[in-house]
């Protein structure tokens, strides 16, 4: 028993994750020790500092290609890039989460367990300071995501999946306004998320049965050797893919997305749309490119059909949406389809274009949700589409910003939406997936329609009695908005540097 070999652990490579977990734990202690009124003041700088420190370590590790902690974690180009992306997007989303000037007490409710409509609930709606537990929860979620994209075996991936999912379920339930919707969103997200992770886990079991191991390199060896039962392999791969596609919001596993995006507090929605999507596609890339490239010819047609279905569902259903957050949710579903097109190129360009797309989309979607948090009336955010009519007259600046973001979603040139779509379609074309490109181009043409409908409505309608006002954003929201819009523009006009970076970062370690 004494010759047990301890795994070598490269602490510098793990530092970003360790820092974030540490900050999250510190955040919990702050909740326990610091008086209520001052918790927010401590939590926000703590969170931001932690993220910055983690980012410093990610940058310092640039160029590393190794597996550590007994092959459980891979630190390579895609992992570092995705970790950096998640951290930066997390910072921007955290700015939205920390905004307290739009609504007295911030976007979260003080005591989520209080029955809706009770005396205590009415008093807390009136402006009691919101739950600061949100900050450690966000930190746990982000730390889980960092681990998720670096996971080099299926167990680590599963644990990371749960580590970032569980806080998100809770965060969904914390909205200050429309609490019934918020709770319902949390319940749906939770039940369906647990359901999907059960599929994922059974997939792990089958793959373990097939390959006799759970690290991606061993799985790859087993797949290329072609020994073992194909049934176990393919059923396992299918179930694994389902778990990941659920988080990525691909059809038909997208059903939770519109409901949850609509019900969750808007800053959390932006976190999910940007960071969760990045993490999910990061993991999907690793599973498909590192673990199962030997089965490319088998899974590509099937996931390709899913990609087309996803693009279609997102584009078609976005046409008749009447709620802004749901519209953005369907747009996010369609974008999952475009990302899948990039993933399925199964070439180095496929990896780099997908990475690029994730960053570009993340910034745009956070900025879009930031605008959603600004359009308010006495009851909180006014998300119904009809309420946005004539917004261009009332607030040309924010309507202009939102128009720009919508044009970016529609893939109009000179926005990041165009360059990123161009990159993934180009990669897929280069990978021989013409059918996916044609479907992608056609649906993106279709998808432009709902966006332009909103643009026309904002600019060409008269503001009515019910047109809500646009609140003056606080410093945090302004910062998030400016960052999101600038990056969207920059990546549309000058995408070269980031494309270079993704090209250099596109190499997985096996």
């Amino acid at each position: 028993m004494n010759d047990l070999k301890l795994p070598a652990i490269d602490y510098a490579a793990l530092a970003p994750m360790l820092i974030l977990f540490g900050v999250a734990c510190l955040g919990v202690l702050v909740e326990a020790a610091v008086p209520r009124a001052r918790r927010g003041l401590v939590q926000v700088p703590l969170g931001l500092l932690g993220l910055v420190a983690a980012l410093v370590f990610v940058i310092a590790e640039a160029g590393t290609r190794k597996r550590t902690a007994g092959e459980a974690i891979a630190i390579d180009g895609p992992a570092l890039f995705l970790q950096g992306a998640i951290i930066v997007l997390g910072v921007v989303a955290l700015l939205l989460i920390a905004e307290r000037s739009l609504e007295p007490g911030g976007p979260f409710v003080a005591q989520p367990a209080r029955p809706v409509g009770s005396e205590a609930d009415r008093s807390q709606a009136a402006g009691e300071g919101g739950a600061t537990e949100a900050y450690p929860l966000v930190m746990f979620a982000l730390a889980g995501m960092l681990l998720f994209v670096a996971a080099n075996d299926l167990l680590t991936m599963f644990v990371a999946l749960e580590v970032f999912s569980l806080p998100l379920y809770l965060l969904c339930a914390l909205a200050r306004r429309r609490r019934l919707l918020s709770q319902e969103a949390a319940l749906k997200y939770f039940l369906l998320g647990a359901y999907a992770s059960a599929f994922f886990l059974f997939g792990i079991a089958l793959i373990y049965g097939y390959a006799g191991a759970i690290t991606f390199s061993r799985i790859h060896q087993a797949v290329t050797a072609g020994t073992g039962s194909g049934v176990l392999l393919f059923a396992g791969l299918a179930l694994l893919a389902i778990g990941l596609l659920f988080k990525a919001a691909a059809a038909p596993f997208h059903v939770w997305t519109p409901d949850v995006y609509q019900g969750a507090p808007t800053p959390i929605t932006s976190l999910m749309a940007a960071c969760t999507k990045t993490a999910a596609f990061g993991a999907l890339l690793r599973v498909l490119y590192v673990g199962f490239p030997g089965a490319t010819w088998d899974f590509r047609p099937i996931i390709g059909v899913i990609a087309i279905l996803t693009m279609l569902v997102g584009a078609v259903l976005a046409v008749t949406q009447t709620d802004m957050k749901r519209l953005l949710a369907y747009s996010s579903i369609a974008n999952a389809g475009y990302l899948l097109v990039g993933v399925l190129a199964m070439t180095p360009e496929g990896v780099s274009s997908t990475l690029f797309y994730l960053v570009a989309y993340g910034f745009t979607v956070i900025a879009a949700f930031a605008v959603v948090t600004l359009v308010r009336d006495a009851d909180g955010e006014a998300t119904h589409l009809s309420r946005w009519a004539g917004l261009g007259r009332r607030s040309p600046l924010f309507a202009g910003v939102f128009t720009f973001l919508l044009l970016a979603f529609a893939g109009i040139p000179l926005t990041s939406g165009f360059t990123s779509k161009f990159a993934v379609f180009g990669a897929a074309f280069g990978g021989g997936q013409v059918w996916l490109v044609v479907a992608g181009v056609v649906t993106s043409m279709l998808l432009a329609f709902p966006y332009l409908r909103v643009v026309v409505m904002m600019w060409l309608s008269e503001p009515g009695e019910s047109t809500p006002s646009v609140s003056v954003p606080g410093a945090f929201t302004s910062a998030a908005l400016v960052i999101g819009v600038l990056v969207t523009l920059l990546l549309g006009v000058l995408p070269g540097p980031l494309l270079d970076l993704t090209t250099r970062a596109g190499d997985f370690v096996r």
Partner: protein
Amino acid sequence: MEHTVQFAPATGLLSGMWLLVALPAVSAAVLLLLGRRADRWGHWLGCLSVGAAFVLGLLSFFALRGQENRAVQLNLWEFISAGSFRVDFGLLFDPLSAVFVLLITGVGFLIHVYAVGYMEHDEGRRRFFGYFNLFVAAMLVLVLGNNYVMTFLGWEGVGLASYLLISFWYVRPSAATAGKKAFLMNRVGDAAFVIAIFLLFAQLGTVNFDGVANQVHTLSSGVTLMLGLLLLLGATGKSGQFPLTAWLPDAMEGPTPVSALIHAATMVTGGVYLIARSNFIFTANSTLQLVVVSVGALTLLIGAIIGCAKDDIKRVLAWSTVSQIGYMFLGVGLGGAAYALAIVHLLAHGFFKAGLFLGAGSVMHGMRDQVDIRRFGGLWKYMKITWVTFGLAWLAIIGLPPLSGFFSKEPIIVAAFERKDWTAWLFGIAALLGAGLTAFYMTRLFMLTFHGPKRWTDDIEHPHESPPIMTIPLVLLAVGSVAAGGLMVGPVPKWLTPVLGHEVRGEAVLAHSAITILAIAVTLIGAGLAYLLFRDGTATAPQPAGALVTAARKNLYIDAFNEAVFEKPGIFLTRALVFLDGKGIDGAVNGIAASVGGGSGRLRRLQTGFVRSYAMSMLTGALLVVAAFLAVQYGWFA
């Protein structure tokens, strides 16, 4: 086409060509972002920026003449670079883009000035100028880009601006519908264009014009055909050509200056530009050329025939635009020397059609926005300047020598007769027929509007001439309509030679002079027929009872003649075409739009809100995915 195409780097004045795009773009941003603060002076800023761009365009044009290599490019920065693939944000100023720049900024400037007067009472004037400048900037990007991605960038930009401007009077449901239809039809074309770009990228690894031009001969003919057809579909979408015609006439719901600038002079000629720019692809495949020629010939006839049956002044002009662009497609499809002829016609058309639209706008301005030509008549006395300028543009479009339409259209007809085989007769006669029909419907329009008895609605007593700010552009455009063709038909093809290749003329199946005489003859016949039929107004309009009792007999006689000789078959043909257009193509587009909307509405119901039904859809999906994997594994699909 084995000579290599090379672009020289920009120096001196030409290195400032980015300003051409930047001026209107910055102005648009200022107008749209400043909001009401810019209401007072916004329209002047809009005019100024386009005027400045025109001056700069002129200077650049002269600078280019002094260059040895008349194709100058300016790579501003690297736009997209992924692996071996690289797209620059680059501009190209060569003879072809130079003439387009002058047309866009020159005619654009006049129309901007006109719009200051036309939109005076519209409270959205500042926004209007903002979109208008946005359009000019995008159009300049379209014609100045040095690769297909840049062209596409401008392509999307003009589409967006056009959509916003068509829907500008959103309160009219018809305007909103028209905007939607224009958008959808353009998207079909855009999708084809994007796929063509990817095809180029996948096959040649470059999308730069020089790179593609130098390597296009390495492509197999199947790929070239595919590429050309995709580009052609893109071009038909933007230019309102068959089969994507229907949006253009509906787009007339926008304000008249929009119709003049976007839907007559510039944007809709984008398709012609695309094909002329891609001449190396189209010349490489004769099947492709035949398709382009057929599209052009078919559209020019469709447009002309339907133009005969419309009573809305702007719709007649819109169908006329469709028909004239058909001539241009015919020209670019014929290849060789006809490329340049198509561009000449495009430029001449830019002048006289802009003049016609602005004249129509002036008439509407004086007649309380009446658009029905059966409700005009005798206006020449009341709006003299409009009458004269409109008349000159009318003579120009029907191709009467020595006005510009003659010099630009007649050579295309000749070129059609120069085809190698029997198709010479087919396309030559189609082009001749089109000329006759053009003369007919334009004369009808002119006579019914300005001459004959007054048939005004009761609320109009004194139609008035438009203010000078509107008439001055009219006069300038009329001068252009008269002179442009004659002045351009010689030098422009020579000027364009570096881009479009040397002039290689074939033998026409008829003598050149015979064709010229024939062309003039059909024009005169068409015009004369229309003059005879419509000099005393028209009876097809519901007239105030008793007003025309004395003339009734004569009118009836004309009607009978009219009906027997022309209208019966004409109406039949027109109805057939309108049916095809309304139910076929149009129906398809509306059908797609409706089915997307309806499908969306139905699919939405699947999102029941019950968590268990979501779980059901997930489980079903999971079973299908697992089953599909196993099916692939066991080769059940193979």
